[in-house]
């Protein structure tokens, strides 16, 4: 009985322990992928589980070149992400297995919605892992 209580406690505490690892994961695995860009202040990182969806409304300024990075801990597996305008029109869609960065140039200032979709899993034990979204910018090259 005590053993089972320990097991349940461990299962409940795992997300919090994993949370604490997201900063290290971001520093070591994600930030290097923004090389050549100046990282802006957007630093969004959280432990996600299969079936989670999260949205970010980001402002991108005109005459800038951007790199959007969706960095996923391999424990979670690959995830889908989309970039849409505020009317819901799809601009870009990818799975992190194919492309975890989206480079683009902004002609004028726009708000864009970045949506993260963690696929469902058939596994009984929930998979979870850090997902970090970072944005870097640089002067626009013609």
């Amino acid at each position, binding site marked *: *009985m005590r053993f*089972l209580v320990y*097991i*349940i406690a461990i299962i409940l505490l795992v997300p919090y322990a994993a*949370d604490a690892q*997201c*900063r290290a994961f*971001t*520093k070591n695995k994600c*930030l290097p992928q*923004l090389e050549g860009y*100046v*990282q*802006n*202040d*957007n*630093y*969004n*990182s*959280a432990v996600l*589980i299969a*079936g*989670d*969806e*999260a*949205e*970010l*409304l*980001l*402002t*991108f*300024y005109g005459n*800038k*070149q951007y790199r959007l990075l969706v960095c996923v801990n391999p424990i979670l597996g690959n995830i889908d992400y989309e970039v849409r*305008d*505020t*009317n819901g*029109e799809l*601009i*870009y869609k990818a799975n992190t297995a194919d492309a975890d960065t989206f*480079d*683009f*140039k*902004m*002609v*004028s*200032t*726009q*708000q*864009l919605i970045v949506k*993260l979709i963690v696929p*469902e*899993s058939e596994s*009984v034990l*929930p998979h979870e892992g850090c997902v970090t*979204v*970072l*944005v870097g*910018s640089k*002067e626009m090259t013609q």
Partner: protein
Amino acid sequence: MLKNRIVKTFVGFMVIGLGLVSCDTGTKETPTPPPIKANLDSAAEARKKDLQKIFFSIPSTVEMASLIKEKGMGFDKSILNSTDNVDKYTGEARQAVNLGIYGADLSYAAMFDEKQVTMNYFAAAQVLSRKLGVEGALTGELLERLEKNQESRDSLLNIVSEAYGDLNGYLKENKRIEISALVVAGGWLEALNISCNYDPIGNPDIRTRVAEQKYSLKDLVAYFDKFGDAPALMEMKADLKVLQTLFDATQTNSGKVSSSKGQDGVVVIGGSSSITMNDETLNKIATKVKEIRTKFTSI
């Protein structure tokens, strides 16, 4: 989707729970079955709300400052919040807002390659972060990296951005999201105040950048609203809402967003959306920003 995941997890716990109950040989009344669907719905809703508090667009102080630099304007230390004030801030809310303000000042100094000023503001930010009990961010290791990477402006900027990103990450991970929100608001306010000091009436690009802060302010207010009536946030939230009424006088011209691939293969996103404002609105916004910022920085 998420609900299915929660159902699976919940069922797993139910199985374990049933196992525990079956081990108990005592006789008890049969408990009323819990309203499972209602519990799952509220768990899914709570999870969604938690994620909304974590995944949030942070207005970029770096990008606000970069425009000033790009337009060939000079560095002006007098418009920053003096580091002499750092020891005088008491109370978590004031400390958090001024930590954000020093962060924007740091970005601005780094943008202009003002190495000594950057170091001084980093040290001031470090003092405030310690007062807030944030020992794990803005570390001495980052200060050393700042000292070692003084040759490159981009390195300075990246270290400053990384430091504040890490600070926000630390606060979120330690369930101090309200403090994080105040740091973000302080940074945004300071960056806007800096921009307003560069004669936005005479500089169309800066005027536009100030007007575009309508987007960031809308996001910021929506973010603060997610915390309900949290006492620590009330003062800043009220100030932001007053500022928002002034931004309501700007004109938003919505247009369709277009995207295409450029010759170099990079996607180009265009569109005709713009935000404009007249001199009167700009003056009102600049005055109010200064007033709010002075209130939070004064001792």
